[in-house]
């Protein structure tokens, strides 16, 4: 087990390094830096001024050394200008050139400063991650049990009416991307002119103008059913369909196995066959699927946070990308990639643990 884990972690670190380098290169391409120079300096800078701004602010030189600095394995740049003022990567705020540390990259915990939020990137990212964490938590709480139940119910009697109904539902939800289901949900539940809200308001069943809130901005401060249900449902719906279909496939496959027949012909009652013999085998595959859903969930989060204006991690990512906030975008990418890799690792290890055939051989 240990060598396996070590190898997996090794591959993971290698992947993370490669990916962060790719992201670093893509965000630090010349056009991006030019844009940065013009926003930080002045819009009307001449091309020469832009070039010197870039060099003076440490964005010149080889990509790999800049990446090294960002990572914190290459000493941060310093530059003394004509006036004798020394500036450098690690010389910020109250820190003077003399007592500045040599290295200040992410390995030292220095993620840089966001140009959009005007605060340390580390702070922005942790704050927003926390908000998104709540969203994810609720999505998981809704999505996992519902999808597993649907999948098991439709897979245990393939072709039955329950199966047909539930499968249709599952297919329909997987065919509906978040930006579509979000739009439809808002129109139905959170529009003052269409859907059910005007009717409910007319009957006097709801006090406000809409049943649910069409934005989730207020959920940053306090989560309520009314401001959080739609975003959570929007993300969960897609996942429900997807996981339910995987569970169904796995369940139907298990139900045709010889050992299920053995159990039945031992005289085990149907519900016992399902609970004792089928479930455990059938849930191994969906487990990996749920874990591998994270990258896609992340997508959903970005869309939903944009659509519902919930200021979480996804929203931040969009802001960073839209405003050429290089440091923030880099940090977001690293976090996102990291989440994906960790879930992949968990999925691998979990698969091995759930499956006695692999675990013990």
């Amino acid at each position, binding site marked *: 087990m240990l060598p396996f884990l070590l190898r997996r972690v090794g591959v993971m670190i290698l992947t993370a390094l490669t990916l962060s380098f790719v992201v670093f290169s893509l965000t630090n391409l010349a056009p991006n830096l030019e844009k940065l120079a013009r926003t930080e300096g002045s819009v009307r800078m001449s091309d020469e001024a832009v070039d010197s701004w870039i060099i003076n602010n440490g964005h010149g030189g080889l990509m790999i050394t800049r990446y090294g600095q960002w990572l914190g394995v290459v000493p941060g740049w310093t530059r003394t200008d004509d006036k004798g003022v020394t500036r450098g990567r690690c010389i910020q705020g109250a820190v003077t050139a003399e007592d500045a540390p040599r290295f200040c990259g992410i390995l030292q915990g220095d993620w840089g400063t966001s140009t959009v939020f005007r605060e340390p990137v580390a702070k922005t990212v942790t704050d927003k991650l926390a908000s998104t964490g709540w969203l994810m938590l609720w999505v998981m709480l809704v999505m996992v049990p519902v999808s597993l139940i649907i999948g098991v119910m439709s897979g245990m009697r393939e072709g039955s009416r329950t199966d047909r109904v539930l499968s249709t539902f599952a297919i329909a939800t997987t*065919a509906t991307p978040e*930006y579509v289901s979000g739009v439809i949900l808002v*129109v139905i539940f959170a*529009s003052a002119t269409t859907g059910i809200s005007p009717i409910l308001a007319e009957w006097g069943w709801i006090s406000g103008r809409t049943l649910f809130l069409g934005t989730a901005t207020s959920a940053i401060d306090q989560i309520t059913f009314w401001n959080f249900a739609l975003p959570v449902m929007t993300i969960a719906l897609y996942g429900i369909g997807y996981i339910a279909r995987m569970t169904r496939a796995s369940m139907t496959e298990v139900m045709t196995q010889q050992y299920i027949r053995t159990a039945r012909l031992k005289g085990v009652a149907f519900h016992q066959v399902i609970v004792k013999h089928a479930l455990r085998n059938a849930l191994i595959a969906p487990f990996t699927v749920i874990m591998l859903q994270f990258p896609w969930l992340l*997508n959903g989060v970005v869309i939903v946070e944009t659509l519902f204006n919930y200021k979480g991690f996804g929203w931040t990512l969009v802001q960073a990308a839209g405003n050429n906030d290089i440091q923030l975008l880099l940090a977001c990418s690293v976090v996102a990639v990291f989440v994906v890799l960790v879930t992949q690792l968990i999925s691998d290890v979990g698969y091995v643990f759930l499956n006695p055939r692999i675990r013990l051989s």
Partner: protein
Amino acid sequence: MEPLSWPMIFAKMAVQFWPVWAALVATVVLSLQFRRRLGLYGKLFDSTVGMTGFVIVMFWVFTAIFADMIITYDPIAQLSGLKNALPGTPVEGTGQWYLLGGDHLARDVFSRVVMGARRVLTIAPAATVIAFMVGITLGLPAGYFGGRLDTGLSFIANLVLAFPVILLFYLLVTPEIRSTGVPIALAAVLFLFPVIFVSVLLNSRFFTTPAKRNLYVGVSLAIGLWAYSGLAFNADPTGIWSMDPNLLNVFVSVVFVNAPTVFRIVRGIVMDLKSRDYVAAGQTRGEGAWYIMLWEILPNARGPLIVDFCLRIGYTTILLGTLGFFGLGVSPESPDWGSTIDDGRRLLSIYPHPAVVPALALMSLVLGLNLLADGLREESMRD
């Protein structure tokens, strides 16, 4: 003139779609007639799910084909006074209507959705085909040879897969990046695969009769490289093959995120199929590796690949929509569904129709593709 009532709107739309109905009826009747001779495609008509999916997909395909006959207005023309017009609003002085209303720039929503079908149904399948060629050309040797090659290629595939798609799009589809030449470089790599694929395919089969081989491979190389020069570098002297740089950008990104998954699927199937006796028989005859991969293994992997192909077109459609949703789409004027949804969502709670119509269109197409894939999967597993 009076605004139309909903039943009238539907009736008018149904009439507009007449070429589609005609084509659909013809297809279904012909297919039902000859279904016993049409293999898997014919069997599809035995399953309700598959047939439903097929009809939905074909509806949109025919809509895309006959879009010029169906639209009632120019999809980018802005008519005054029809800003955010409700569905069924008459257009003064023409005796015509904005069947599904107007959007925030006073363009006809109905015509935009119909034209959007054409956009979506040209880009998504084409991108999927290229992604398949890339995935297959790399997945076959990875699965067949295994070892270092497999480790390397799988590592790269996993790298791409570990990237959250949206992030990738933000990095690849921004206007800045176009000037750096990254998309062209990517296109240069990705578009090369179809050419390689076809040439190797023909060469491995016909190398025993050099005359034939030279002809086939020569012709396919000529056409392939010609198209390649035009599409990737915009260097086709005749100008037949060319791609708008913005479109190229989107296209390449979509291929780029899809190819690794195809790669993984192909690799998995190959690992399974390569232990079959007919593969061993090929080896003991002294067949080349590429012949075995392309002619002995690949045709027998077609079942799962066709199913995945349908699903993937749907997925690609969703991706294109996502791009549009973040304003990274083909162009702001473009009627493609994703961009239209993005345009419409700002006034969503007051004027839902400009966003809901393309949303439903997109959903039904993807649903159709999913149902089709399901039907195919079920039928191909049966007897």
